[in-house]
Protein backbone atom coordinates (compact mmCIF):
# COMPACT_ATOMS: atom_id res chain seq x y z
CA UNK A 1 0.00 0.00 0.00
CA UNK A 2 1.33 3.46 -0.69
CA UNK A 3 -1.27 5.63 1.01
CA UNK A 4 -3.86 5.57 3.77
CA UNK A 5 -6.78 7.95 3.39
CA UNK A 6 -8.78 8.94 6.45
CA UNK A 7 -12.33 10.04 5.82
CA UNK A 8 -13.78 12.75 8.04
CA UNK A 9 -16.99 11.57 9.63
CA UNK A 10 -18.64 14.51 11.32
CA UNK A 11 -20.83 12.34 13.50
CA UNK A 12 -17.99 10.53 15.28
CA UNK A 13 -16.22 11.66 18.44
CA UNK A 14 -12.77 11.89 16.84
CA UNK A 15 -10.85 14.80 15.35
CA UNK A 16 -9.59 14.00 11.88
CA UNK A 17 -6.41 16.09 12.12
CA UNK A 18 -5.46 14.60 15.51
CA UNK A 19 -6.14 11.04 14.33
CA UNK A 20 -4.11 11.64 11.17
CA UNK A 21 -1.19 13.05 13.17
CA UNK A 22 -1.20 9.89 15.32
CA UNK A 23 -1.12 7.70 12.20
CA UNK A 24 1.76 9.74 10.74
CA UNK A 25 3.64 9.36 14.03
CA UNK A 26 3.09 5.60 14.04
CA UNK A 27 4.24 5.06 10.44
CA UNK A 28 7.42 5.97 8.62
CA UNK A 29 7.03 5.54 4.86
CA UNK A 30 3.40 5.34 3.84
CA UNK A 31 1.65 8.52 2.70
CA UNK A 32 -1.33 9.56 4.78
CA UNK A 33 -4.16 11.69 3.48
CA UNK A 34 -7.32 13.24 4.78
CA UNK A 35 -10.02 12.46 2.30
CA UNK A 36 -11.77 14.77 2.70
CA UNK A 37 -12.37 17.70 5.01
CA UNK A 38 -14.54 20.68 4.20
CA UNK A 39 -13.59 24.36 4.47
CA UNK A 40 -17.14 24.87 5.77
CA UNK A 41 -16.51 23.07 9.06
CA UNK A 42 -13.30 24.78 10.23
CA UNK A 43 -11.76 28.22 9.97
CA UNK A 44 -9.51 28.27 6.91
CA UNK A 45 -6.54 29.35 9.06
CA UNK A 46 -7.09 26.24 11.21
CA UNK A 47 -7.07 23.97 8.16
CA UNK A 48 -3.88 25.67 6.95
CA UNK A 49 -2.00 25.26 10.21
CA UNK A 50 -3.31 21.77 10.91
CA UNK A 51 -2.17 20.67 7.45
CA UNK A 52 1.22 22.36 7.91
CA UNK A 53 1.64 20.59 11.27
CA UNK A 54 0.84 17.23 9.71
CA UNK A 55 3.23 17.85 6.83
CA UNK A 56 5.98 18.57 9.35
CA UNK A 57 5.15 15.49 11.42
CA UNK A 58 5.06 13.29 8.32
CA UNK A 59 8.06 15.00 6.73
CA UNK A 60 6.15 15.52 3.48
CA UNK A 61 4.00 12.35 3.64
CA UNK A 62 0.75 14.20 4.29
CA UNK A 63 -1.91 14.89 1.63
CA UNK A 64 -4.86 17.18 2.14
CA UNK A 65 -8.17 16.20 0.58
CA UNK A 66 -10.51 19.14 0.36
CA UNK A 67 -14.15 19.09 -0.66
CA UNK A 68 -17.43 20.79 -0.05
CA UNK A 69 -18.57 17.86 2.09
CA UNK A 70 -21.28 15.23 1.98
CA UNK A 71 -24.66 16.74 1.15
CA UNK A 72 -26.41 14.95 4.02
CA UNK A 73 -23.83 15.98 6.63
CA UNK A 74 -23.97 19.61 5.51
CA UNK A 75 -27.75 19.69 5.74
CA UNK A 76 -27.59 18.12 9.22
CA UNK A 77 -25.13 20.79 10.36
CA UNK A 78 -27.14 23.58 8.76
CA UNK A 79 -24.24 24.54 6.49
CA UNK A 80 -24.82 26.19 3.15
CA UNK A 81 -23.08 24.51 0.22
CA UNK A 82 -24.24 27.04 -2.37
CA UNK A 83 -21.69 28.20 -4.98
CA UNK A 84 -19.25 25.36 -4.34
CA UNK A 85 -16.86 26.49 -7.10
CA UNK A 86 -16.21 29.83 -5.41
CA UNK A 87 -15.84 28.09 -2.05
CA UNK A 88 -13.26 25.59 -3.33
CA UNK A 89 -11.35 28.12 -5.42
CA UNK A 90 -11.09 30.57 -2.53
CA UNK A 91 -10.19 27.85 -0.02
CA UNK A 92 -7.38 26.37 -2.10
CA UNK A 93 -6.02 29.80 -3.01
CA UNK A 94 -6.04 30.97 0.60
CA UNK A 95 -4.32 27.82 1.84
CA UNK A 96 -1.53 28.23 -0.70
CA UNK A 97 -1.09 31.91 0.15
CA UNK A 98 -0.93 31.19 3.88
CA UNK A 99 1.61 28.39 3.36
CA UNK A 100 3.74 30.72 1.20
CA UNK A 101 3.96 33.04 4.21
CA UNK A 102 1.96 35.89 2.66
CA UNK A 103 0.08 38.43 4.75
CA UNK A 104 -3.49 37.76 3.66
CA UNK A 105 -6.48 40.05 3.60
CA UNK A 106 -9.53 38.52 1.97
CA UNK A 107 -13.26 38.83 2.51
CA UNK A 108 -16.09 36.80 1.04
CA UNK A 109 -19.32 35.45 2.46
CA UNK A 110 -17.37 32.34 3.61
CA UNK A 111 -13.93 33.62 4.55
CA UNK A 112 -12.66 36.66 6.36
CA UNK A 113 -8.95 37.16 6.86
CA UNK A 114 -7.49 40.52 7.75
CA UNK A 115 -3.73 41.06 7.82
CA UNK A 116 -3.38 37.43 8.76
CA UNK A 117 -0.06 35.66 8.44
CA UNK A 118 1.31 32.41 9.77
CA UNK A 119 4.13 32.63 12.28
CA UNK A 120 5.06 29.02 11.60
CA UNK A 121 7.04 27.94 8.55
CA UNK A 122 5.15 25.42 6.43
CA UNK A 123 8.38 23.51 5.82
CA UNK A 124 7.06 20.73 3.59
CA UNK A 125 4.76 21.11 0.61
CA UNK A 126 1.21 19.90 1.20
CA UNK A 127 -0.51 18.66 -1.96
CA UNK A 128 -4.20 19.49 -2.21
CA UNK A 129 -6.55 16.92 -3.69
CA UNK A 130 -10.08 17.97 -4.49
CA UNK A 131 -12.80 15.54 -3.46
CA UNK A 132 -15.38 16.91 -5.87
CA UNK A 133 -17.79 15.54 -8.44
CA UNK A 134 -19.63 18.00 -10.70
CA UNK A 135 -18.09 18.97 -14.09
CA UNK A 136 -17.36 22.58 -13.06
CA UNK A 137 -15.62 21.51 -9.87
CA UNK A 138 -13.65 18.85 -11.72
CA UNK A 139 -12.45 21.48 -14.20
CA UNK A 140 -11.53 23.70 -11.26
CA UNK A 141 -9.52 20.83 -9.78
CA UNK A 142 -7.66 20.63 -13.07
CA UNK A 143 -6.87 24.31 -12.78
CA UNK A 144 -5.66 24.60 -9.19
CA UNK A 145 -5.42 21.27 -7.36
CA UNK A 146 -2.67 18.65 -7.34
CA UNK A 147 -5.13 15.88 -7.97
CA UNK A 148 -8.69 14.75 -7.57
CA UNK A 149 -10.31 12.07 -5.43
CA UNK A 150 -13.17 10.65 -7.44
CA UNK A 151 -16.09 8.67 -6.15
CA UNK A 152 -19.33 7.65 -7.75
CA UNK A 153 -20.66 5.45 -10.52
CA UNK A 154 -18.08 3.90 -12.88
CA UNK A 155 -19.67 5.38 -16.03
CA UNK A 156 -19.28 8.80 -14.44
CA UNK A 157 -15.59 8.19 -13.75
CA UNK A 158 -14.94 7.63 -17.45
CA UNK A 159 -16.18 11.15 -18.13
CA UNK A 160 -14.34 12.89 -15.33
CA UNK A 161 -10.96 12.71 -17.03
CA UNK A 162 -12.29 14.87 -19.83
CA UNK A 163 -13.77 17.36 -17.36
CA UNK A 164 -10.52 17.67 -15.43
CA UNK A 165 -8.57 17.93 -18.66
CA UNK A 166 -10.54 21.08 -19.53
CA UNK A 167 -9.20 22.78 -16.41
CA UNK A 168 -5.68 21.51 -16.96
CA UNK A 169 -5.67 22.91 -20.51
CA UNK A 170 -7.06 26.23 -19.32
CA UNK A 171 -4.00 26.62 -17.12
CA UNK A 172 -1.66 24.87 -19.57
CA UNK A 173 -0.91 22.28 -16.95
CA UNK A 174 0.46 18.86 -17.77
CA UNK A 175 -1.74 15.81 -17.14
CA UNK A 176 1.29 13.96 -15.78
CA UNK A 177 1.61 16.37 -12.84
CA UNK A 178 -1.99 15.70 -11.84
CA UNK A 179 -3.16 12.60 -9.95
CA UNK A 180 -6.46 10.83 -10.44
CA UNK A 181 -7.42 8.92 -7.35
CA UNK A 182 -10.52 6.78 -7.22
CA UNK A 183 -12.33 5.90 -4.02
CA UNK A 184 -14.58 2.85 -4.35
CA UNK A 185 -16.69 1.10 -1.72
CA UNK A 186 -15.16 -2.36 -1.63
CA UNK A 187 -16.61 -5.53 -0.10
CA UNK A 188 -15.13 -8.98 0.16
CA UNK A 189 -18.11 -11.27 -0.17
CA UNK A 190 -17.72 -14.65 1.48
CA UNK A 191 -21.43 -15.49 1.50
CA UNK A 192 -24.19 -14.02 -0.62
CA UNK A 193 -25.67 -12.47 2.51
CA UNK A 194 -22.54 -10.25 2.80
CA UNK A 195 -23.89 -8.27 -0.13
CA UNK A 196 -26.02 -6.23 2.27
CA UNK A 197 -22.81 -4.37 3.17
CA UNK A 198 -22.25 -3.37 -0.43
CA UNK A 199 -25.89 -2.33 -0.82
CA UNK A 200 -25.68 -0.11 2.24
CA UNK A 201 -22.49 1.53 0.97
CA UNK A 202 -24.07 2.11 -2.44
CA UNK A 203 -27.23 3.57 -0.90
CA UNK A 204 -25.06 5.98 1.11
CA UNK A 205 -23.06 7.03 -1.95
CA UNK A 206 -26.13 7.47 -4.14
CA UNK A 207 -27.99 9.49 -1.50
CA UNK A 208 -25.06 11.89 -1.54
CA UNK A 209 -24.61 12.02 -5.32
CA UNK A 210 -25.54 15.31 -6.97
CA UNK A 211 -27.90 15.29 -9.94
CA UNK A 212 -25.17 16.41 -12.36
CA UNK A 213 -23.15 13.32 -11.49
CA UNK A 214 -26.11 10.99 -11.97
CA UNK A 215 -26.64 12.61 -15.34
CA UNK A 216 -23.00 12.05 -16.31
CA UNK A 217 -23.42 8.38 -15.30
CA UNK A 218 -26.64 8.02 -17.31
CA UNK A 219 -28.56 7.06 -14.17
CA UNK A 220 -32.13 8.31 -14.17
CA UNK A 221 -32.94 10.59 -11.24
CA UNK A 222 -36.15 8.66 -10.69
CA UNK A 223 -34.18 5.57 -9.70
CA UNK A 224 -32.24 7.41 -7.01
CA UNK A 225 -34.95 9.69 -5.62
CA UNK A 226 -36.69 6.93 -3.62
CA UNK A 227 -33.34 5.82 -2.18
CA UNK A 228 -32.62 9.39 -1.04
CA UNK A 229 -36.09 9.74 0.44
CA UNK A 230 -36.02 6.45 2.36
CA UNK A 231 -32.46 7.17 3.50
CA UNK A 232 -33.53 10.51 5.00
CA UNK A 233 -36.68 9.05 6.51
CA UNK A 234 -35.83 5.54 7.63
CA UNK A 235 -32.06 5.18 7.43
CA UNK A 236 -29.53 3.27 5.41
CA UNK A 237 -30.75 -0.28 6.10
CA UNK A 238 -34.16 0.36 4.57
CA UNK A 239 -32.72 2.45 1.74
CA UNK A 240 -30.29 -0.32 0.82
CA UNK A 241 -33.20 -2.60 -0.06
CA UNK A 242 -33.95 -0.32 -3.02
CA UNK A 243 -30.46 -0.70 -4.52
CA UNK A 244 -30.87 -2.74 -7.70
CA UNK A 245 -28.20 -5.11 -9.03
CA UNK A 246 -27.07 -2.81 -11.85
CA UNK A 247 -26.65 0.13 -9.43
CA UNK A 248 -24.65 -2.12 -7.12
CA UNK A 249 -22.32 -3.06 -10.00
CA UNK A 250 -22.07 0.55 -11.12
CA UNK A 251 -21.00 1.99 -7.76
CA UNK A 252 -19.27 -0.72 -5.69
CA UNK A 253 -16.67 -3.40 -6.22
CA UNK A 254 -17.38 -6.70 -4.50
CA UNK A 255 -16.64 -10.39 -4.70
CA UNK A 256 -13.70 -12.61 -3.81
CA UNK A 257 -10.36 -10.87 -3.06
CA UNK A 258 -9.11 -11.84 -6.55
CA UNK A 259 -12.25 -10.47 -8.24
CA UNK A 260 -12.00 -7.25 -6.26
CA UNK A 261 -8.34 -6.78 -7.17
CA UNK A 262 -9.09 -7.44 -10.82
CA UNK A 263 -12.02 -5.00 -10.87
CA UNK A 264 -9.96 -2.31 -9.15
CA UNK A 265 -7.18 -2.83 -11.70
CA UNK A 266 -9.72 -2.41 -14.50
CA UNK A 267 -10.17 1.21 -13.39
CA UNK A 268 -6.67 1.94 -14.69
CA UNK A 269 -8.07 2.04 -18.20
CA UNK A 270 -9.87 5.27 -17.32
CA UNK A 271 -6.54 6.93 -16.54
CA UNK A 272 -6.67 6.37 -12.77
CA UNK A 273 -3.32 6.73 -10.93
CA UNK A 274 -4.38 5.40 -7.54
CA UNK A 275 -7.26 3.35 -6.23
CA UNK A 276 -8.56 3.58 -2.70
CA UNK A 277 -10.06 0.42 -1.21
CA UNK A 278 -12.96 2.16 0.46
CA UNK A 279 -15.05 0.83 3.33
CA UNK A 280 -17.00 -1.21 4.34
CA UNK A 281 -14.38 -3.88 3.22
CA UNK A 282 -16.29 -6.90 4.51
CA UNK A 283 -17.92 -8.49 7.51
CA UNK A 284 -14.54 -8.60 9.25
CA UNK A 285 -12.94 -5.36 8.05
CA UNK A 286 -9.36 -6.01 9.23
CA UNK A 287 -9.29 -9.50 7.71
CA UNK A 288 -10.88 -8.22 4.49
CA UNK A 289 -8.27 -5.46 4.11
CA UNK A 290 -5.48 -8.01 4.62
CA UNK A 291 -6.95 -10.34 2.01
CA UNK A 292 -7.50 -7.54 -0.47
CA UNK A 293 -3.96 -6.28 -0.01
CA UNK A 294 -2.56 -9.75 -0.67
CA UNK A 295 -4.76 -10.23 -3.72
CA UNK A 296 -3.78 -6.78 -4.99
CA UNK A 297 -0.08 -7.64 -4.66
CA UNK A 298 -0.63 -10.94 -6.51
CA UNK A 299 -2.40 -9.11 -9.30
CA UNK A 300 0.62 -6.92 -10.09
Amino acid sequence: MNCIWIREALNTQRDIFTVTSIILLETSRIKVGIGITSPLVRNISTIARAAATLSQIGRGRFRLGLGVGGLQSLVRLGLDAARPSALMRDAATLLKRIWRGETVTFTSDRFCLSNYYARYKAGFATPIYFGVRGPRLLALAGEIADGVILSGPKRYMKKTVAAVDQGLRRRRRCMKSFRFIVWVPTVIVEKKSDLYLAREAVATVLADTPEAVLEMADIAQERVKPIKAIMAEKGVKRASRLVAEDLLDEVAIYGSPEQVALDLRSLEKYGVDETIFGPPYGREPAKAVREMTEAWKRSI
Partner: protein
Amino acid sequence: MEKVDIDFAVGLNAYETVEEIVGKCVEAERLGLDYVWIGDSPPHLYCPSVAAAVASRTKKIRIGLGLLSPLLHTPDQISGSIISLTEAFGDRFEICLGVGDRSQLSRVGVDTKLARVWDHMLKAKRKIARSLSACGVATKIWLGAQGPRMLAASKSFDGVLMNYASPRMIKWAIDKVKPDAQKDFDFGIYAPSYVYRKWRPQAYRLLRIASAVVALGAPTAVLDEFGLGKRLQRAMEEHEAGAKIESVVKRVPSEVVYSFSIYTPSSKLRNYLRELGGLGISHIVFGFPQNLSKVTIRDLANALPNR
Protein backbone atom coordinates in the same frame (compact mmCIF):
# COMPACT_ATOMS: atom_id res chain seq x y z
CA MET B 1 14.00 23.91 51.33
CA GLU B 2 10.49 22.87 52.31
CA LYS B 3 8.28 21.00 49.86
CA VAL B 4 5.96 23.16 47.81
CA ASP B 5 2.76 21.46 46.69
CA ILE B 6 2.60 23.05 43.29
CA ASP B 7 2.75 21.53 39.79
CA PHE B 8 5.19 23.31 37.52
CA ALA B 9 4.79 23.68 33.80
CA VAL B 10 6.42 25.43 30.91
CA GLY B 11 4.16 26.93 28.28
CA LEU B 12 5.21 26.57 24.65
CA ASN B 13 4.06 28.70 21.77
CA ALA B 14 3.69 26.55 18.70
CA TYR B 15 5.32 28.77 16.10
CA GLU B 16 8.59 26.89 16.00
CA THR B 17 8.91 23.62 14.08
CA VAL B 18 7.30 20.53 15.57
CA GLU B 19 10.79 19.08 16.01
CA GLU B 20 11.97 22.10 18.02
CA ILE B 21 8.88 22.08 20.24
CA VAL B 22 9.19 18.34 20.86
CA GLY B 23 12.90 18.80 21.70
CA LYS B 24 12.03 21.36 24.37
CA CYS B 25 9.32 19.12 25.82
CA VAL B 26 11.69 16.16 26.01
CA GLU B 27 14.11 18.41 27.88
CA ALA B 28 11.32 19.64 30.21
CA GLU B 29 10.48 16.03 31.06
CA ARG B 30 14.14 15.17 31.64
CA LEU B 31 14.43 18.15 33.98
CA GLY B 32 11.48 16.91 36.03
CA LEU B 33 8.85 19.49 35.15
CA ASP B 34 5.33 18.20 35.74
CA TYR B 35 3.62 19.62 32.68
CA VAL B 36 4.10 21.24 29.31
CA TRP B 37 1.34 23.41 27.93
CA ILE B 38 1.06 23.71 24.14
CA GLY B 39 -0.49 27.00 23.11
CA ASP B 40 -3.05 27.39 20.34
CA SER B 41 -3.46 30.53 18.30
CA PRO B 42 -4.39 31.19 14.64
CA PRO B 43 -0.83 32.04 13.51
CA HIS B 44 0.68 28.99 15.24
CA LEU B 45 0.80 25.26 14.47
CA TYR B 46 -2.21 23.11 15.35
CA CYS B 47 -2.02 22.38 19.06
CA PRO B 48 -3.63 18.87 19.20
CA SER B 49 -1.28 17.54 16.51
CA VAL B 50 1.75 19.09 18.22
CA ALA B 51 0.52 17.51 21.48
CA ALA B 52 0.40 14.13 19.72
CA ALA B 53 4.01 14.57 18.57
CA VAL B 54 5.07 15.55 22.11
CA ALA B 55 3.22 12.58 23.67
CA SER B 56 4.82 10.16 21.22
CA ARG B 57 8.34 11.23 22.29
CA THR B 58 7.80 11.63 26.05
CA LYS B 59 6.69 9.10 28.65
CA LYS B 60 5.02 10.66 31.62
CA ILE B 61 5.00 14.45 31.51
CA ARG B 62 1.44 15.76 31.47
CA ILE B 63 0.42 17.75 28.43
CA GLY B 64 -1.88 20.74 28.57
CA LEU B 65 -3.62 21.98 25.44
CA GLY B 66 -4.46 25.59 25.45
CA LEU B 67 -5.66 27.99 25.64
CA LEU B 68 -8.21 26.53 23.22
CA SER B 69 -10.88 28.97 22.14
CA PRO B 70 -14.42 27.65 21.66
CA LEU B 71 -14.91 30.70 19.45
CA LEU B 72 -12.46 29.13 16.97
CA HIS B 73 -12.98 25.37 17.53
CA THR B 74 -16.33 23.68 18.07
CA PRO B 75 -16.81 21.69 21.30
CA ASP B 76 -16.96 18.52 19.16
CA GLN B 77 -13.60 19.31 17.59
CA ILE B 78 -12.04 19.95 21.01
CA SER B 79 -13.48 16.82 22.63
CA GLY B 80 -12.65 14.80 19.49
CA SER B 81 -9.00 15.81 19.80
CA ILE B 82 -8.79 14.87 23.47
CA ILE B 83 -10.53 11.53 22.94
CA SER B 84 -8.20 10.70 20.03
CA LEU B 85 -5.10 11.69 22.05
CA THR B 86 -6.19 9.80 25.16
CA GLU B 87 -6.93 6.63 23.17
CA ALA B 88 -3.47 6.75 21.63
CA PHE B 89 -1.33 7.92 24.56
CA GLY B 90 -3.34 7.41 27.74
CA ASP B 91 -4.61 9.83 30.34
CA ARG B 92 -1.91 12.52 30.07
CA PHE B 93 -3.89 15.48 28.74
CA GLU B 94 -5.69 18.50 30.16
CA ILE B 95 -7.27 21.43 28.39
CA CYS B 96 -7.75 25.08 29.14
CA LEU B 97 -10.63 26.89 27.46
CA GLY B 98 -10.80 30.63 27.09
CA VAL B 99 -11.64 33.44 24.73
CA GLY B 100 -8.10 33.59 23.33
CA ASP B 101 -6.04 36.37 21.82
CA ARG B 102 -8.77 38.71 20.56
CA SER B 103 -6.50 40.51 18.12
CA GLN B 104 -5.38 37.26 16.47
CA LEU B 105 -8.90 35.83 16.42
CA SER B 106 -10.30 38.93 14.77
CA ARG B 107 -7.67 38.57 12.02
CA VAL B 108 -9.22 35.23 11.04
CA GLY B 109 -12.77 36.54 11.12
CA VAL B 110 -13.80 35.31 14.58
CA ASP B 111 -16.21 37.61 16.38
CA THR B 112 -14.78 38.05 19.89
CA LYS B 113 -17.22 40.77 20.91
CA LEU B 114 -19.97 38.32 21.71
CA ALA B 115 -22.33 39.35 24.44
CA ARG B 116 -22.05 37.13 27.52
CA VAL B 117 -18.94 35.38 26.24
CA TRP B 118 -18.62 33.59 29.61
CA ASP B 119 -21.92 31.80 28.89
CA HIS B 120 -20.42 30.62 25.64
CA MET B 121 -17.47 29.16 27.57
CA LEU B 122 -19.79 27.43 30.03
CA LYS B 123 -21.89 25.87 27.28
CA ALA B 124 -18.76 24.69 25.48
CA LYS B 125 -17.36 23.19 28.68
CA ARG B 126 -20.56 21.29 29.40
CA LYS B 127 -20.72 19.90 25.86
CA ILE B 128 -17.05 18.88 25.91
CA ALA B 129 -17.39 17.25 29.34
CA ARG B 130 -20.46 15.29 28.15
CA SER B 131 -18.66 14.00 25.05
CA LEU B 132 -15.56 13.04 27.03
CA SER B 133 -17.60 11.28 29.65
CA ALA B 134 -19.58 9.36 26.99
CA CYS B 135 -16.25 7.94 25.77
CA GLY B 136 -15.00 7.23 29.28
CA VAL B 137 -12.35 9.96 29.14
CA ALA B 138 -11.76 12.00 32.31
CA THR B 139 -9.85 15.12 31.38
CA LYS B 140 -9.40 18.13 33.60
CA ILE B 141 -10.92 21.23 32.00
CA TRP B 142 -9.52 24.57 33.11
CA LEU B 143 -10.82 28.01 32.27
CA GLY B 144 -8.42 30.82 31.42
CA ALA B 145 -9.77 33.87 33.22
CA GLN B 146 -8.93 37.42 34.28
CA GLY B 147 -12.07 39.49 34.88
CA PRO B 148 -14.83 39.03 37.46
CA ARG B 149 -17.35 37.42 35.09
CA MET B 150 -14.97 34.85 33.70
CA LEU B 151 -13.75 34.16 37.24
CA ALA B 152 -17.35 33.55 38.27
CA ALA B 153 -17.82 31.21 35.30
CA SER B 154 -14.69 29.28 36.24
CA LYS B 155 -16.50 27.82 39.27
CA SER B 156 -18.17 25.37 36.87
CA PHE B 157 -14.79 24.16 35.62
CA ASP B 158 -12.18 21.92 37.26
CA GLY B 159 -9.82 24.82 37.80
CA VAL B 160 -8.93 28.33 36.76
CA LEU B 161 -5.72 29.50 35.14
CA MET B 162 -5.33 33.19 35.88
CA ASN B 163 -3.45 35.40 33.54
CA TYR B 164 -1.58 37.56 36.05
CA ALA B 165 1.32 37.07 38.41
CA SER B 166 1.06 39.70 41.15
CA PRO B 167 0.15 38.03 44.50
CA ARG B 168 -2.22 40.91 45.24
CA MET B 169 -4.18 40.31 42.03
CA ILE B 170 -4.11 36.55 42.51
CA LYS B 171 -5.50 36.87 46.05
CA TRP B 172 -8.27 39.15 44.77
CA ALA B 173 -9.25 36.52 42.18
CA ILE B 174 -9.06 33.59 44.59
CA ASP B 175 -11.26 35.43 47.09
CA LYS B 176 -13.86 35.84 44.36
CA VAL B 177 -13.90 32.18 43.34
CA LYS B 178 -13.03 30.17 46.44
CA PRO B 179 -16.21 30.54 48.53
CA ASP B 180 -18.34 28.78 45.87
CA ALA B 181 -15.72 26.51 44.32
CA GLN B 182 -15.78 22.70 44.56
CA LYS B 183 -13.47 21.14 47.13
CA ASP B 184 -11.04 19.77 44.54
CA PHE B 185 -11.04 22.94 42.45
CA ASP B 186 -7.54 24.00 41.35
CA PHE B 187 -6.16 27.51 41.20
CA GLY B 188 -3.33 28.11 38.77
CA ILE B 189 -1.60 30.90 36.94
CA TYR B 190 -0.32 31.08 33.38
CA ALA B 191 1.82 34.15 32.91
CA PRO B 192 4.64 35.46 30.73
CA SER B 193 7.78 34.46 32.60
CA TYR B 194 11.47 35.03 32.74
CA VAL B 195 13.27 33.25 35.58
CA TYR B 196 16.97 33.71 34.91
CA ARG B 197 20.34 32.61 36.17
CA LYS B 198 22.21 34.78 33.70
CA TRP B 199 20.18 37.78 32.55
CA ARG B 200 19.70 38.03 28.78
CA PRO B 201 18.49 41.31 27.26
CA GLN B 202 16.64 39.56 24.42
CA ALA B 203 14.56 37.47 26.83
CA TYR B 204 13.79 40.52 28.95
CA ARG B 205 12.67 42.51 25.89
CA LEU B 206 10.35 39.62 24.89
CA LEU B 207 9.00 39.37 28.44
CA ARG B 208 8.05 43.05 28.35
CA ILE B 209 6.27 42.60 25.04
CA ALA B 210 4.41 39.43 26.14
CA SER B 211 3.41 41.02 29.42
CA ALA B 212 2.29 44.26 27.76
CA VAL B 213 0.09 42.30 25.35
CA VAL B 214 -1.59 40.55 28.29
CA ALA B 215 -2.02 43.82 30.21
CA LEU B 216 -3.49 45.63 27.20
CA GLY B 217 -6.02 42.83 26.75
CA ALA B 218 -7.00 42.72 30.43
CA PRO B 219 -10.60 43.59 31.34
CA THR B 220 -11.16 47.18 32.47
CA ALA B 221 -12.60 45.88 35.76
CA VAL B 222 -9.24 44.29 36.61
CA LEU B 223 -7.15 47.26 35.52
CA ASP B 224 -9.34 49.70 37.46
CA GLU B 225 -9.42 47.50 40.56
CA PHE B 226 -5.65 47.75 40.79
CA GLY B 227 -5.28 51.30 39.55
CA LEU B 228 -3.57 50.25 36.35
CA GLY B 229 -6.10 51.61 33.87
CA LYS B 230 -4.88 55.19 33.93
CA ARG B 231 -1.26 54.12 33.79
CA LEU B 232 -1.95 52.14 30.64
CA GLN B 233 -4.03 54.81 28.94
CA ARG B 234 -1.37 56.18 26.60
CA ALA B 235 -0.20 52.70 25.64
CA MET B 236 -3.80 51.69 24.95
CA GLU B 237 -4.41 54.72 22.76
CA GLU B 238 -1.32 53.96 20.71
CA HIS B 239 -2.23 50.27 20.54
CA GLU B 240 -5.75 51.04 19.33
CA ALA B 241 -4.34 53.46 16.75
CA GLY B 242 -2.37 50.52 15.32
CA ALA B 243 1.13 51.48 16.53
CA LYS B 244 3.77 48.76 16.46
CA ILE B 245 3.90 46.72 19.66
CA GLU B 246 7.59 47.58 20.24
CA SER B 247 6.62 51.24 20.43
CA VAL B 248 3.52 50.58 22.56
CA VAL B 249 5.58 48.58 25.05
CA LYS B 250 7.68 51.65 25.82
CA ARG B 251 4.53 53.31 27.16
CA VAL B 252 3.75 50.43 29.53
CA PRO B 253 5.14 51.19 33.00
CA SER B 254 7.38 48.52 34.51
CA GLU B 255 5.09 47.88 37.51
CA VAL B 256 2.31 46.98 35.06
CA VAL B 257 4.66 44.59 33.27
CA TYR B 258 5.60 42.95 36.56
CA SER B 259 1.95 42.60 37.64
CA PHE B 260 1.29 40.37 34.68
CA SER B 261 4.54 38.42 34.55
CA ILE B 262 6.89 36.27 36.60
CA TYR B 263 10.20 38.07 36.40
CA THR B 264 12.85 37.10 38.90
CA PRO B 265 16.40 35.84 39.25
CA SER B 266 16.37 32.12 39.93
CA SER B 267 17.71 32.68 43.46
CA LYS B 268 14.53 34.54 44.45
CA LEU B 269 11.96 32.31 42.77
CA ARG B 270 11.36 30.15 45.85
CA ASN B 271 10.17 33.09 47.96
CA TYR B 272 7.64 33.93 45.30
CA LEU B 273 6.47 30.31 45.05
CA ARG B 274 6.12 30.11 48.83
CA GLU B 275 3.88 33.16 48.72
CA LEU B 276 1.73 31.71 45.92
CA GLY B 277 1.55 28.34 47.67
CA GLY B 278 0.26 30.16 50.74
CA LEU B 279 -2.48 31.72 48.65
CA GLY B 280 -3.64 28.30 47.44
CA ILE B 281 -2.03 28.18 44.01
CA SER B 282 -1.41 24.58 42.92
CA HIS B 283 -0.39 24.99 39.28
CA ILE B 284 2.02 27.43 37.65
CA VAL B 285 2.63 27.68 33.93
CA PHE B 286 5.76 29.64 33.10
CA GLY B 287 4.85 31.16 29.74
CA PHE B 288 6.79 32.87 26.97
CA PRO B 289 9.70 33.75 26.91
CA GLN B 290 10.73 31.11 29.47
CA ASN B 291 10.44 28.63 26.58
CA LEU B 292 12.89 30.62 24.45
CA SER B 293 15.53 27.89 24.51
CA LYS B 294 16.49 24.72 26.33
CA VAL B 295 18.85 26.91 28.39
CA THR B 296 16.05 29.16 29.67
CA ILE B 297 13.94 26.07 30.45
CA ARG B 298 16.92 24.58 32.31
CA ASP B 299 17.38 27.83 34.28
CA LEU B 300 13.77 27.58 35.36
CA ALA B 301 13.92 23.89 36.27
CA ASN B 302 17.07 24.36 38.33
CA ALA B 303 15.41 27.17 40.30
CA LEU B 304 12.36 25.10 41.24
CA PRO B 305 12.00 23.20 44.53
CA ASN B 306 11.41 19.43 44.67
CA ARG B 307 13.56 18.80 41.58
